C-alpha cells in the first residue's frame, strides 16, 4: 500500500514539475519572440519542415477521414431517410473536430518527434551546451522559431485537412453512395457557418503551439545518450497526443 502511494505521489509530483517547467519555457519563448535577433531564416526553415513537408500526410489523412466519415454517417442517416445531411455532418465534424485534432496528431507524430530527436541529440552531444557557450540562448535559437512556425502553419494545415475531408466525403457520397448532389450541397451550405471553421482554426492554432512546445521541451530535457533520445521521442508523441485531446475537450467546452 505504501509503495503504491509512493508511486502515485512520485508520479503526481513529476506531472506538476513537468507542467510547471513547460509553462515557464513557453512563457520564456513567448517573451523571446519579441527580443532581437529575429531568426527569420530559421523560422522559414521550420515552416517548411513542419508545414510543407507534412502536406502529403495531411492531405491523405483529411481525405480518407472525410471519405470514411461519409460512409459511417450514411449508415445511420439512411435508417430514417436523411442521407442528404451526410454532407452537413461531414463538414461540421471535419471543421470543428476531426480536421484540427487529426492533423495535429499527424504533425506531432511526424514533425514533433523529429524535433525531439534533433534537439535531444544536440543535448546529449553537448551541442546545446556549445550554443550556450557561444553566447546564444538555446531557448531563443531552438524553441522560438519552431513554436512560431507551429502557430503559423498548423491552422493552414487544418484548412487543407478540412477541405480535403469535405471533398473526400462529397466524392464518396455522390459517386459511391448515390446521394443527390444538389440536396447534399444545399444542406451542407445551409447548416455550416463561418463560426464552425473559426472554431477549428482556434483549436489548430493552440495545437500548433502544443505540438512544437512538447517537441522542443522533451528534446531539451533529454539525458542518457541514444537510449534517452529514443525515450524522449516516444514520450514526446504520447504527451503531445494526450495534451491535444485534453485541450480539445477544454476548448470545445469553452467555445460550445
Amino acid at each position, binding site marked *: 500500500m505504501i509503495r503504491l502511494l509512493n508511486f502515485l505521489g512520485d508520479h503526481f509530483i513529476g506531472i506538476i514539475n513537468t507542467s510547471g517547467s513547460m509553462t515557464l519555457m513557453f512563457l520564456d519563448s513567448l517573451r523571446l519572440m519579441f527580443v532581437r*535577433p529575429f531568426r527569420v531564416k530559421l523560422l522559414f526553415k521550420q515552416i517548411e519542415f513542419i508545414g510543407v513537408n507534412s502536406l502529403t500526410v495531411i492531405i491523405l489523412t483529411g481525405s480518407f477521414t472525410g471519405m470514411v466519415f461519409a460512409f459511417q454517417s450514411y449508415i445511420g442517416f439512411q435508417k430514417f431517410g436523411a442521407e442528404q445531411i451526410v454532407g452537413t455532418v461531414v463538414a461540421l465534424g471535419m471543421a470543428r473536430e476531426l480536421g484540427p485534432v487529426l492533423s495535429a496528431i499527424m504533425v506531432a507524430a511526424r514533425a514533433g518527434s523529429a524535433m525531439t530527436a*534533433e534537439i535531444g*541529440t*544536440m543535448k546529449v*552531444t*553537448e*551541442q546545446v*551546451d*556549445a550554443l*550556450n*557557450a*557561444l*553566447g*546564444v*540562448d538555446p531557448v531563443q535559437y531552438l524553441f522560438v522559431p519552431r513554436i512560431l512556425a507551429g502557430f503559423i502553419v498548423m491552422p493552414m494545415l487544418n484548412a487543407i485537412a478540412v477541405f480535403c475531408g469535405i471533398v473526400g466525403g462529397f466524392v464518396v457520397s455522390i459517386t459511391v453512395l448515390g446521394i443527390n448532389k444538389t440536396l447534399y450541397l444545399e444542406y451542407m451550405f445551409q447548416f455550416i457557418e463561418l463560426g464552425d471553421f473559426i472554431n477549428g482554426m482556434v483549436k489548430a492554432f493552440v495545437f500548433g503551439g502544443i505540438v512544437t512546445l512538447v517537441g522542443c521541451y522533451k528534446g531539451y530535457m533529454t539525458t542518457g545518450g541514444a537510449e534517452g533520445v529514443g525515450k524522449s521521442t516516444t514520450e514526446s508523441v504520447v504527451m503531445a497526443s494526450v495534451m491535444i485531446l485534453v485541450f480539445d475537450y477544454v476548448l470545445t467546452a469553452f467555445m460550445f
Partner: protein
Amino acid sequence: MEYALECIDVHKSFGRHQIHKGINLKVVKGAITYIIGPSGTGKSVLLKQLCGLMPPTKGRVIVNGKDLTSLNRNELVNMRKKFGILFQNAALFDSMNVFQNVAFPLVEHSKMSKDEIAKTVTEKLRLVGMKDVEDKMPSELSGGMRKRVGLDRAIALNPDIILYDEPTTGLDPIMCDVVDTLIHDTQKQLGVTSIVISHDIESTLKIADYIAMLYDGKVVLYGTPEDFKNTDNPYVKQFFSASKEGPISII
C-alpha cells in the same frame, strides 16, 4: 599575481550524490592551468561551472571580479562570450558544415560582412593546419580534425579564457602532440588564459604552467609541474605512477 578566474568553496551535488565538496582554486591570468584527476571526479562538471553553464550548489565562481552565480540570464549569456570552450567531442553542430560551424559565433556576435567572415574562417582554419575542408560536414571529419575545427570555433571571437575538456582523449599519439602544440601555440599567440581538463600526464607535464589535481570533490594539490614531480602527496604519486595501489579507490 593576477587571477582570471576564482572558485570559492564550490560544492556541487546531483540529488544525493555529492560531486564537489568545497573546491577552492585560483586560475592565473595568461597561463595554462591543467585540472587533472581520475575519471568520475567531476572535472567536466567543474569546467561547466567555471563558465556558468552549470550553477554550483553552493559557493562562488568569480570571473573578472564578477560572481557568475549572481548574474541573471542575459548577463550570463554576455559573460560567456569571454569564454571559448572546446568540448570533449568538439560538439560541432552536425546540421552545419565546417565553414558554418566556425563562422557561427562571427555571424551571431560580430558586425563583419560576409566576405570578412569568409576570410576570417579561412585564416582560422589555416591556423590549425586545415585546408579545403570548409564544405565538409562534421560526420566526414576524423576525431583530430573535429577537435581542430572545435578549437577554431572556440577562438573565433578572441575570448579571454579558453576551456578545453579532455582535448587529447581518443586521439592517436601524433594527433595528441598536434593538439598539445595547438593549445600551447594558441596561448602564446593570443595571450589567453587556458584551462585544460585532462588525465593525460605526459601532456600535462609538457604544457602546463600550473596543475590542480582533483580527488574526492576537493583539490588535493595545486602547483607547478615541478611541484607535482617532487611531491610526496600519495594521491598525486599514485595517479602519476598509474598504479592501482594507493589511496585512490578504483570503485
